[in-house]
């Protein structure tokens, strides 16, 4: 019996964002955009979905008169990511 893959994570861009965030303490929106090569609009939508799922925290602020969006993975996000990887391995090894 295989676990169902988390639909929130089983999408290219959202999974890329989560994989980046799991490796760092926190990252700016521009960093995520640069590493994923996504458009700003698409990335914003996917970040909002991850935030709504409680997988990431998003802090929007102004720094030196520039808007700055910082993302950080939550404990719930870490657990979901770990479960997702475990489920993936089970599928691949079946």
């Amino acid at each position, binding site marked *: 019996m295989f676990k169902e*893959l988390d639909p929130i994570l*089983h*999408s*290219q*861009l*959202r*999974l*890329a964002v989560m*994989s*980046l965030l*799991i*490796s*760092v*303490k*926190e*990252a*700016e929106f*521009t*960093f995520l955009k*640069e*590493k*994923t*090569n*996504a458009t700003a609009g*698409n990335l914003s*939508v*996917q970040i909002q979905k991850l935030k709504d799922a409680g997988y990431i925290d998003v802090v929007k602020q102004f*720094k*030196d008169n*520039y808007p*700055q969006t910082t993302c950080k993975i939550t404990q719930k996000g870490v657990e979901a990511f770990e479960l997702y*990887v475990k489920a*993936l*391995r089970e*599928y*691949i090894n079946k």
Partner: protein
Amino acid sequence: MEDRELSQQESLLLIEQMIQAAKKEQKDDGTSWIVWGWMLFLASILTIANVHFGWYNTFFFWNLFGVASLIIFLYQASRFLFLKRPQKVRTYTNDLFGRLNAGFFISLILIIVGMNIGVPVTKGFPLLISLYAFWILIYGSALNFRPSIIGAYITWGFAIAAMFVKTFELVMVMHALGVLFGYIIPGHIAHKEFKELHRKEKRAQLV
């Protein structure tokens, strides 16, 4: 990158690629090790020559090193305060290094002050070499950078040797060798690897 569903294999590959991309942010280019390494090395070697030929007072080149360090510190502090380059990403390693740097410099200053108020320089410098080794080991372990881990143990070897040699010139030789194996060689290896990584990245972007 689009928002599409992936196969299981594609998912694992993507995770691996993104983790590698994030890891690159933690890769050090070795510049600090090279700059500080050569400065410390030159100060040691010139001090040996100075003691031997009697050009100036014994610590002339160390005082010069102190002035140069102060200039570099002020330059870096002003860049940090006035340029305020936004930090795109914060890693656990960088945060750890920030705190350890503070601890390293406090201990360093304490030993230097100690040498100025009575601790014999022939005992103070071995303690400094030992402190370098400690910081090099933490750095190497945190970044899993083998040349620094090996360099740290070699540097400790020179710290122990420096503790038992009889003359100040020999202490300076141990200091120079410690810095060579702990700072300069790993620094140049890190720099080479960093450049290689960027070349690979550029090639991958062109393909």
